[in-house]
């Protein structure tokens, strides 16, 4: 019996052993397995869980915190975080720290409506995580809001986005973009 290396257990013969083909085969097999192990670690970096969904139609009542519930088919979703049956959320499938962001989020005001503030927030299991309020808007323009932060997630966690605006008149969702990117595992 020969020895083995300490990490990947690559076998090698001792100097007093009679060499045979099996020894070379075992050596090659162990190297093959070790390379596969490393490749698996590399591949994990190339395919981290991620999702991005977009919504662009929905009435948003004045002065009522409203959950966006018209998220559509994902631009990307490699772990099934989006389900058309629950278009008001994305659902975490893999435990980890996630960078959750909303970008370009904005409302389209109707007629002579005005907007004095707009608050976009990210919720996890109905608990507010973080958000951004734009004050002093005082216009009919489309102030866009981008919010980006890290949160700790477990499988089944629901990530949702709410919007609350003040002013006068009516508004529809113009564009909302929600994305989650896996940063690291919890262990």
């Amino acid at each position, binding site marked *: 019996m*020969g*020895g*083995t*290396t*300490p*990490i*990947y257990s*690559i*076998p*090698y*013969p*001792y*100097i007093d*052993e009679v*060499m045979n083909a099996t*020894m070379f085969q075992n*050596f090659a097999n*162990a*190297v093959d397995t*070790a*390379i596969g*192990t*490393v490749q698996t*670690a*590399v591949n*994990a*970096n190339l395919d*981290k869980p991620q999702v991005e969904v977009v919504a662009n139609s929905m009435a948003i009542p004045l002065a009522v915190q409203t959950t966006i519930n018209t998220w559509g088919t994902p631009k990307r979703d490699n772990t099934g975080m989006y389900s058309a049956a629950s278009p008001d959320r994305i659902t975490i499938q893999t435990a980890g*720290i996630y*960078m959750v962001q909303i970008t370009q989020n904005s409302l389209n005001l109707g007629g002579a409506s005005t907007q*004095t*503030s707009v*608050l976009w*927030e990210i919720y996890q299991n109905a608990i*507010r*995580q*973080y*958000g*951004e*309020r734009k*004050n*002093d808007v005082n216009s009919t323009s489309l102030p866009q809001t981008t*919010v*980006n*932060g*890290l*949160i*700790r997630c477990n499988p089944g966690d629901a990530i949702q986005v709410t919007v609350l605006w*003040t002013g006068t008149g009516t508004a529809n969702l113009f564009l909302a973009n929600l994305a989650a990117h896996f*940063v*690291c*595992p*919890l*262990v």
Partner: protein
Amino acid sequence: MEFSPNLNFPCPSPEDYGAIALYMQRLAFEIEEKLNAEQVSANLAYRPFTDVWKTTAIFGPISSSGILFIDWLNNLVFRNYTLSGAPRFGGSSGTFPAPGVYHMGFFVNTTTVGAANADSFRRVDMKIQKETNIGSVTFYNIDRLIGEEGIAGGNFFGSEGVVIIDQDYQAWKAVTEFTHGNTSSDMNLQVGALAWRTYLGTLDQITVT
């Protein structure tokens, strides 16, 4: 003994046939060393040094003439490494685990205790500083300043940025301050203030051309 051209794996010459056992042993250990280095790098990329802090109590009140230092230290909710040196994310040095490039940021909600002064400022400034022989020097300000508009619920805002920490990483620290100009009443930092830091990469990979 001959060697492969790139990674210098050893190969026996005809006179070495008697030493094949030694050859296989040496080759096995050299393969292992190189593969393990690759795996360590891959694992670090999969598990970048990351911290997340989230406050569980109201901070304040603080007057318009004061500075509130946000205590992330006692509000850690996640860390995936063992921090050597001072385990602080506040006023002390030694707050970074290694040299490298980091993404950092925060989100807060600030509220007034009493009357709110229209358009008065609220500012959170995460200063990334290095201790030097002339004192603490601020190299980065991850900050945000907004104006009060009297909307119920408070002012929700945040900021983020990328910072580079040099080889003298234990001399670096992050200090987060909240200040405001609401002279009519003090202000609080509400529960749930969030901060994070995650490692983006090593300085070794940065090439200036």
